[in-house]
């Protein structure tokens, strides 16, 4: 069981990690400033495997990979949201953070205890089940390889187009 850290709609990358910290690349250092000024207790109190639950368009804005890294540095492994911004979604997967789409995050409260069964496509909150959208298998391969880097190490050359689907 993990604790839920609840956020609203349109949580942007400036909120996740402000521009003045972008010379930092170490995820543990970035984690100290995650959501600084927006939710100051998060970086101090969140534990490994806690879960972020948010509304629509999580991670909108900049392409800074510092954003998923700051979250991962806190120990978070999964984010549930009604939807994700495109670049953040890719960046999260690429650094080994799993973004899951859950239409019912409105019903999940801050501080709830949650069990995520991502492979079964459900989350359990107070004994009640809610669906999460399935994730394509290649995404699991990247996340489970701990990100795109490990995946890329296995490749000699990129399988361009005709050989496409990852």
């Amino acid at each position, binding site marked *: 069981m993990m604790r839920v850290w609840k956020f609203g709609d349109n949580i942007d990358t400036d909120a996740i990690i402000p521009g003045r910290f972008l*010379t930092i690349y170490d995820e543990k250092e970035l984690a100290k400033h995650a959501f600084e*000024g927006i939710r100051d207790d998060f970086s101090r109190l969140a534990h490994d495997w806690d879960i972020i639950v948010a509304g629509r368009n999580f991670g909108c804005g*900049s*392409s800074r990979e510092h954003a998923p890294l700051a979250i991962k540095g806190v120990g978070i492994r999964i984010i549930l949201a009604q939807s*994700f911004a495109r670049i953040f979604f*890719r*960046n999260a997967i690429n650094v080994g953070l799993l973004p899951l789409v859950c239409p019912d995050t409105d019903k999940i409260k801050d501080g709830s205890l949650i069990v995520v069964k991502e492979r079964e496509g459900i989350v359990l909150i107070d004994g009640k089940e809610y669906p999460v959208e399935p994730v394509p298998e290649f995404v699991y391969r990247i996340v489970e390889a701990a990100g795109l880097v490990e995946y890329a190490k296995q490749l000699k050359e*990129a399988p*361009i187009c005709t050989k496409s*689907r990852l």
Partner: protein
Amino acid sequence: MGATIVEKIFSSKCSHKIQAGQVVMAPVDAAMIHDITGPLAIQKFYEMKGTQVFDHKKIVMLFDHQVPADSIPAAENHVYMRKFARDQGIHNYDIAEGVCHQVVVEKGHVAPGEIVVGADSHTCMYGAVGAFATGIGSTDMGFVLKFGALYFRVPETIRADVYGTFQNRVGAKDLILSIVADIGADGATYKAIEFFGDTIQQMDMAGRMTCCNMAIEMGAKAGIVPPDATTWKYMKDRRAGIKPFELKSDSNAMFAEQRRYDVSNLQPQVAVPHNVDLGVPVSKVAGTHIDQVFIGSCTNGRFEDFVEAAEVLGDRTFSPSLRVIIIPASREEYLKTLKAGLIEKFVKAGALVEAPCCGPCMGGAFGLLAPGEVSLSTSNRNFRGRQGSTDAKVYLCSPATAAASAITGEITDPREM
């Protein structure tokens, strides 16, 4: 069934028919890295056991976010990237040329029909020349540096059909702020937006860049304007030997959505804190006190933007009650503005004119806001904390509205000046 311009670009690059929704590994024609996202991309390239980049001529490197180095860590990042450029034989524009997106376009690193990626979200701006261009993260960029390719989900296209003639002192920025307000901050997530119609055809390249630049503010993967005579004329001096060809969506292409926008009665727009899709007519916020005005950025730091501001300014001076920061987006735009006498005009009017860079837009370098302060900015984002304190406010607007407001000291309709 016909194809959209985006489907045609992917089909051409992949040598077979590609439809929206397909996931493809596609080659890229150019890749851009800057001082914020570049160091991590290089680190990822090495972690992926990269030794030689896929093609040193196709990589654009420059520094624009924290220049000249504003901290020792920033200086160290610059040193790290310079070494990578030397080792790999990559041409590095360093701090000399200006904001990445403007430089990529004006130096001819992108052309119609190409696929270009950049480690910055506003890379979608290059769609103004009829390319497919999208922002990516550093790990994706590490992959691109090594392989010269990336996996893409080919996006569906929303077509924005724009018609009518703008009123005086209303233009591209007002249009795009109104489109963002209409479509919403996530209304185009994972999709491309094609800017189409008479108004776009009559729009100069600067205006097209302003529109495409902000496609990301609707969550879009790319913004694109089909290349026309204006595009080819712009490209002629920037890409040796380039020859015009036809590239546009088929009339029977499948669009996710088509929206029509009549600009004839469009008012100057202001996006209020703290989201870009909160655009309202300027009349709704006229009179709002402001502490700082910023005219610049990849969205509105071009010569045409400064002409627009200067026309509103006339022989007046800026209000002493606020700071006015003006930053051309590139060396080329700076020189044009300088030669036209506008820099002198702005300085005499009380502005602080800085050398080409991102400036206060991303709140990482200088021009930060204190708690309680209010900024009016021609840039692209007004998120809480974007330009400094999380207790500050940022409003977004056109160069004309910024200039009018800088004269009066409060948000002002430029048509009243």
